[in-house]
């Protein structure tokens, strides 16, 4: 039944399309003119018909003749001109445009043109009346759709009409409902459907996706904003709090190892086994008992003991053999063997690098990298052109060398791709060889010394022998230069000779015959020293100077000799320390109160300083000699003392006006000393009154004190704020015409000078001691103290005052009461270590 109905619904539509020129309508067939009339009277004819249709009244449905339904094309096509539409034909799908079109299509030709011209006139009229452009009125006009579609094939099931394809031939609810007609519950369903129809509102199509999402987002935002704003108070509170506490009331649990251990439960198989053994009933009971049971449990079977003994014996045997072997190796005296051993040792040293964990790590990494590379590239696995070629030609044809090369390459590959093994080294052999080496080095020490000495000697001899030719031309050939050089050379030779002697003596000493010859050596050495005392340091300096002259000829040797000399001094430095005498101490020994005198003495002592050290340095090889030299130096000192005293007297005579006031202290010092030399202390109540001279000096000491101070202040000011340099012309600049001279200095120079002057004046005015006549406050910047101040303000602060004021309070426990110290120093966040911080929770 449904089938037939559907067919009916579709068929007319097809037909209508097929017969384009005809207007198919249901109801009685009327002539076109009449129909037109009817339409104009009642345009909603169609709807009415449909509504009729809705009201379910039984109607007779005429069957379509089989020929016409073209079933299976069993019938020939028949030109059916007088065809009547079935009664229930619905025309709801036909758009109104179509109607127009069809109507107009009927009377095309002139009417179309008429219409157009009519419209043009109308527009023009409107234009005239309103004065508006014609376009404004054209919107009213309906757009004409004069597209006519012609079907190439007659309409059939195989050529469905456009409507069907567009989905216009829809199944309605009624279609579905009809078959249920008469079934129980049908009326109810029908009523429901009707109700729904009546109330139905057109459903909007869903929004486009982006828009939909936008709407969603907006709603989500509103919602989540509302939700989050609940947290606002909490967050604000946390932000403003100076300290935030996290999870204060959490019990962390165990704190001791014992507590953790007591909670131990065996879990793995092994643990369980151990546990069962340890906590075995037997054992625990045995422990509780007197111990006899324990002994019983201790019993070991005979086989076990025997096996153990055997094992131990074997180990011992192995050890013994090993020992023997190493002993034998130790006794080998072959040089080649040792050399080879040494080679091995050097290799072992490479492995020793690996003992150093860092180096080992590096090496391992490198190896791993290489391995990976090899595995990647397979460079050594016959992949090269050469290898391929050889492979192609066949191995048997190749000569031995090539074969070896190939096999070597393969081996390399294997080596590289092999997994890295642990390193093993022969420690025993190393040990023995090391011991040997030690012995040798012990002997060597002396030998090397000897060698060094000999080399030094040779070099000095070379220097002595070297009669360098005098330059014939140039500055050096000038007579005074020649003379100077000669002098220098002499001095250098002297020095060299001295060094030579010393080398000799020390050589002899080393060789063992130190008693007689050594003494002779000393004597000769001392002789030279005595005579040369004053010249020695100078000559040394000269040697250094000559350096420059020899430079062009043969600098290496010279440098070496000097190095030797230097070395010597370096070696003997420690002795210098012992006898290194401060000028201060020397001064004290002489006990002179006057500064002016000290100055002169200072000079002397300065001169004497290096001499003394030199003597001592030369005597470093032998303690006897040292002692003697010490005596010598003492003698020298005493001499100097005497000299000083003389000079002191002289100074006293010459300089009457010593500016420095002598304090009474000093006198008492010397007094005290003289008295205490005896060890008997006499009473010191009697005070010497200051002498008349002293008093007068004191009285007038401050006469020009103020002037002095002002001068010193000026000096310091000049030092700290230096006066600008006076502008000067570059000599020769602009002087060849006299224009510059006439003009004087260029104005920019003067301006610059002026500006610098002004700046200096300003700086001086800005000094803290500018208005204080009697005060000099240094403006020097102390680099070391600079780190105690900040260069820039720390972040949140914007101005200096707030920062500095915020720092004014000390925070230490010494400065604050115990009740507030905690609050003052509390950190920003307080939490228990090891406890994770949970996300914020809303509390209500």
């Amino acid at each position, binding site marked *: 039944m449904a089938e037939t109905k559907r067919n009916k619904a579709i068929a007319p539509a097809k037909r209508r399309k097929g017969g384009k020129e005809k207007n198919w309508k249901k109801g009685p067939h009327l002539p076109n003119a009449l129909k037109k009339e009817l339409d104009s009277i009642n345009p909603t004819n169609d709807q009415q018909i449909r509504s009729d249709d809705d009201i379910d009244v039984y109607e007779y449905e005429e069957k379509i003749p089989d020929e016409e339904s073209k079933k299976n094309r069993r019938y020939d096509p028949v030109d059916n001109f007088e065809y009547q539409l079935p009664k229930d034909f619905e025309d709801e799908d036909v758009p109104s445009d179509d109607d127009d079109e069809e109507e107009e299509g009927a009377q095309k030709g002139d009417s179309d043109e008429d219409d157009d011209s009519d419209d043009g006139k109308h527009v023009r009229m409107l234009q005239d009346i309103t004065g508006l452009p014609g376009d404004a009125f054209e919107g009213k006009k309906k757009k004409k759709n004069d597209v006519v579609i012609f079907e190439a094939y007659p309409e059939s099931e195989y050529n469905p009409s456009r409507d069907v394809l567009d989905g216009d031939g829809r199944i309605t609810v009624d279609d579905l409902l009809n078959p249920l007609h008469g079934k129980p519950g049908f009326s109810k369903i029908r009523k429901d459907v009707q109700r729904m129809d009546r109330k139905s509102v057109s459903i909007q199509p869903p929004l486009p996706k982006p828009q939909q999402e936008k709407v969603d987002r907006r709603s989500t935002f509103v919602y989540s904003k509302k939700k989050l704003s609940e947290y606002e108070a909490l967050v604000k509170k946390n932000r403003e709090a*100076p300290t935030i506490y996290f999870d204060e009331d959490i019990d962390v649990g165990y704190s001791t190892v014992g507590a953790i251990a007591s909670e131990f439960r065996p879990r793995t198989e092994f643990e369980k086994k151990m546990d069962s053994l340890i906590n075995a009933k037997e054992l625990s009971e045995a422990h509780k008992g007197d111990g006899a049971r324990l002994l019983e449990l201790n019993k070991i079977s005979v086989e076990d003991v025997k096996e153990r003994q055997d094992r131990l014996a074997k180990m011992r045997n192995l050890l013994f053999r090993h020992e023997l072997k190493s002993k034998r190796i130790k006794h080998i005296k072959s040089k080649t063997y040792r050399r080879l051993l040494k080679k091995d040792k050097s290799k072992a040293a490479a492995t020793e690098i690996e003992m150093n964990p860092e180096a080992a790590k590096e090496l391992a990494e490198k190896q791993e990298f290489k391995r990976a590379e090899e595995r990647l590239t397979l460079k050594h696995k016959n992949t090269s052109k050469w290898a391929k070629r050889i492979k192609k030609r066949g191995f048997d044809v190749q000569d031995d060398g090539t074969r070896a090369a190939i096999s070597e390459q393969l081996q390399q590959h294997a080596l590289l791709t092999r997994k890295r093994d642990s390193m093993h080294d022969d420690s025993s052999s190393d040990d023995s060889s090391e011991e040997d080496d030690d012995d040798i080095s012990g002997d060597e020490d002396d030998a090397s010394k000897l060698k060094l000495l000999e080399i030094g000697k040779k070099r000095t001899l070379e220097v002595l022998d070297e009669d360098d030719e005098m330059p014939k031309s140039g500055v050096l050939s000038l007579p005074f230069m020649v003379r100077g050089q000669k002098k220098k050379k002499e001095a250098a030779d002297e020095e060299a000779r001295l060094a030579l002697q010393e080398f000799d003596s020390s050589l002899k000493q080393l060789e063992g015959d130190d008693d007689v010859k050594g003494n002779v050596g000393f004597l000769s050495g001392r002789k030279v020293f005595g005579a040369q005392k004053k010249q020695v340091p100078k000559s040394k300096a000269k040697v250094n100077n000559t350096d420059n002259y020899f430079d062009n000829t043969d600098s290496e040797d010279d440098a070496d000799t000097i190095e030797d000399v230097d070395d010597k001094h370096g070696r003997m430095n420690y002795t210098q320390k012992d006898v290194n005498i*401060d000028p*201060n*101490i020397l001064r*004290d020994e002489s006990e002179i109160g006057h*500064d002016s005198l000290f100055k002169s003495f200072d000079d002397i002592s300065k001169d004497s300083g290096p001499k003394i050290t030199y003597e001592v340095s030369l005597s470093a090889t032998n303690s006897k000699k040292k002692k003697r030299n010490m005596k010598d130096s003492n003698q020298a000192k005493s001499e100097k003392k005497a000299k000083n005293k003389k000079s002191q007297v002289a100074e006293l005579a010459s300089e009457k006006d010593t500016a*420095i*006031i002598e304090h009474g*202290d000093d006198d*008492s*010092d010397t007094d*005290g*000393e003289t*008295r*205490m030399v005896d*060890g008997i*202390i006499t*009473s*010191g109540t009697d*005070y010497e009154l200051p002498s008349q001279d002293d008093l007068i000096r*004191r009285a007038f*000491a*401050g006469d020009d*004190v*103020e002037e002095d*101070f002002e001068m*010193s202040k000026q000096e310091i000011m000049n030092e700290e704020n230096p006066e600008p340099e006076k502008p000067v012309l570059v000599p020769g600049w602009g002087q060849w015409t006299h224009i510059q001279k006439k003009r004087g200095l260029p104005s920019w120079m003067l301006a610059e000078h002026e500006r610098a002057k002004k700046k200096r004046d300003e700086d001086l005015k800005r000094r803290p001691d500018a208005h204080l006549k*009697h*005060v*000099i*406050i*240094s403006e*020097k*910047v*102390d680099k070391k*103290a600079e*780190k*105690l*101040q*900040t*260069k820039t*303000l720390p972040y*949140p*602060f*914007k101005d*200096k*005052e*707030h*920062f*500095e*004021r*915020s720092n*004014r*309070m000390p925070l230490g426990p010494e400065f*604050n*009461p115990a009740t*507030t*110290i905690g*609050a*003052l120093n509390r950190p920003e966040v307080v939490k228990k270590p090891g406890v994770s911080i949970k996300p914020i929770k809303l509390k209500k």
Partner: protein
Amino acid sequence: MEIQDISDDIDVKVKKYQRGESADLEALKDKKLKGQLANREDLYKKSANAAAKAEKWLMQTEGGRLESEGFEKTWRFSQQSIAQEVDVASRKNQFDIVLPDLGPYTIDYTSSGRYMVTAGCKGHLAIMDLHTMKPIKDFQVRETVRDVVFLHNELFFAAAQKKYTYIYNNAGTELHCLKEHGAVLKLQFLKNHFLLSSINKFGHLHYQDITTGQMVGNYRSGLGRSDVLQVNPYNSVVTSGHSGGTISMWKPTSAASLVKMLCHRGPVTAIAFHPNGHLMATAGMDKKLKIWDLRKYEALQTLPGHAKSLDFSQKGLLAASTGSFIQILANSSDSQNYDRYMIHTMVKGYQIQKSRFRPYEDVLGIGHSMGLSSILVPGSGEPNFDSWVANPFETLKQRREKEVRLLLDKLPPESIILDPTKIGTLRNPNKIQKATKEEKEAEKAAAIAAAKSGPQKKKTKGRSKPSKVAKKKQEGVEKAKRPFAEENKHEVVSKKKQKRITEANELPKALQPFVSRKSS
């Protein structure tokens, strides 16, 4: 009325503990910072209140002074009359020790005031426990001793002897011989920095760190011999007095004196500092005693009289001694001016070497030519001691703990500056000093010389041809020169810029934007 008084009193104390006002927080734009600072200020206030209350209730002992009635003058009270009034424990502090042989004595107290070390000029050294009045150690070094100071506690002291300075322990064992100081005339110990400073016969100033033995500073004063050296307890700046009437202040990290002042027209004989660090008293040969305000470097007061030794007490009394006469000056509570408070005369002929107030006691110790004396000066010592700072009743354990704490709190020598409140503040930007032209040139020359004489690498064959070596050397020199040249260029550029700016400033405002770069 009483309550009002108490609250006023507390207000004053709170102010003291707040250490100044807070900055104006309302002016801050940063809300977060404002909140934080306000929080801190609250805490500070709380802390200050608590401290003030603690002081009020825990430190009840107040210092007193001699008060006169009617015509009486305070300086008329003799030691005998004072002795009659005071308790037995205080009377114990009046004593004379006659040591006629070993010459004028100099003395020093530990910071707690319990122990005294004395040194006779002729080699007598002794430490005394002043609570038990027993000598702990008494020995002779048989040479001149010019000065003696305690180090951080009573276990160690330094003595400036004829040649060298020595450090002894309280058993009289010589621990160190400080040879580098030379023949020291005066010693001072900077207890917060553990520095021993000295001035020797030649006017050389030395600073030695006694914990490490390192010589921190060694400077020439350049003003001749001086035996006047005093440390300012407020900032640890050491001040020396010189024969030209000048004093100079020193810190261990700079060779130049911080401040030089012309105080007297004759040689300076003594210097003393008030414990708060703002007042300084100097005495000179010109028979004047001056009191200076160190904040302004101006003399507040000039008093007549010689003084060989000056000392401020903890409460701010000033003892000046000369010959056998001691004068004690005090400022009245309402004015800054010092006037005569007490006088004390020794037996005629006694020469007073040094007078020092004993901390936490109303006692003045005197070292003179015939031994030691101790007199009572009411109102001189701080009545309440802080056992964290100095405890006269220290036990062995406390002493040990304190030593460790002191060492942990030891300050580095560079923290000695004139105004210690400047530490931690923003550096003055215009203080940054540029090197002068000469210095720059010297630096350049040094750099070039270093480049020239620098070690040459021995390279493989062909690489160390003389020509190559020379070339390399030349390159090195050029490289060394470069930064200086660049600096110069910068300078030139900045000068040009400045010129343009000044030029622009000379023009009327409307025309300033039209000053072209090229015109200059």
